């Protein structure tokens, strides 16, 4: 939802599909590069150093560090949400119902 909000402010339309689909283009500047870094960091994948270097080369050290921080904190946020069983708040559930359905996110809950 905040991704859409940031797009509205920038006068751009960012694609939610890129969140779940590696092949989709997000429209976010350097989005593909950042997503590849996130994926490698979450999995501690063999190509992590390469993805990190790609972010460093294109966006610089500070951007690489801030991206790593977001990856780190969200890897933790999901544990809190899942282990406490918190529900999605009603207003968020209502606003996000369409794109949750479109992206198949509701299936996460059923697993």
């Amino acid at each position, binding site marked *: 939802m905040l991704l859409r909000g940031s797009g509205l402010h920038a006068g751009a339309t*960012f694609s939610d599909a890129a969140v779940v689909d590696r092949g989709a283009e997000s429209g976010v500047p350097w989005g593909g590069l950042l997503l590849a870094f996130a994926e490698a960091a979450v999995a501690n994948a063999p190509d992590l150093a390469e993805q990190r270097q790609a972010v460093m080369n294109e966006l610089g050290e500070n951007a690489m560090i801030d991206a790593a921080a977001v990856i780190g904190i969200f890897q933790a946020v999901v544990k809190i949400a899942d282990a406490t069983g918190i529900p999605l708040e009603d207003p968020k559930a209502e606003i996000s119902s369409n794109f949750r359905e479109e992206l198949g996110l509701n299936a996460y809950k059923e697993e």
Partner: protein
Amino acid sequence: MAIRKDLTEAHDRAWDRLGRAGTWLNSAEKVSIAEETRSALACIACANRKEALTPEANVGVHNSASDLHPDWVDVIHRITTDANRLTKRWFDRVVPEVLSTEKYVETIGIIAETIAVDRFHVALGLPLRNLPIPKPGEPSRESVASAREAGAWVPMVNPDDLSDADPAAAYAMYEGRGGANIHRALSLVPACVSGFFDLDDAMYLPDAMLRRFDIEPRAISHSQIELLAARVSALNRCLY
């Protein structure tokens, strides 16, 4: 690597908290939880469970790094490696048989802070911080009178319900926070909310900046931050 000072300081504070007695757990237990959070990532049993069709499959004994009870170790390893397959039925088996609700919540808080700091270091190719040496001291055992069942597995505190019967820490935990369910999730142990969101402010964004799309306080933009956040959540198959 020149890491932002406020980020390093937030990590320092997290490690300082980790080494001190908490609300319901002593410092040795807290550091042991952090050790188990780390060992879970290399645990064969956890890897086998992750591959199993059901998380209830018998996958053997965990690679344990501590003296914690094996059932507590199982809780830590599951939250660390297979959280999206946790169920209310599993929770009802664990609480209160293995842990009191308060200790369960505090355990989650420690796992979360450890993961946040560790994953940051992994992402940057930096060595993990040494875990702190536990400091002497007793848990405060401050309970929150206004915690209620509110649709989550654990009782939570609605900011509007706080009363004189609650400790000061309960009031402090929501300062500068919107009171969304992710803020309330650990509210049975206010120190966990304050601690985790102290980290969150430095690693993500302070709440007040979330919708300030006209200001970019980081070296990546709001849209880049939110894209990363959403992808990490999706990779973890977390609906929230």
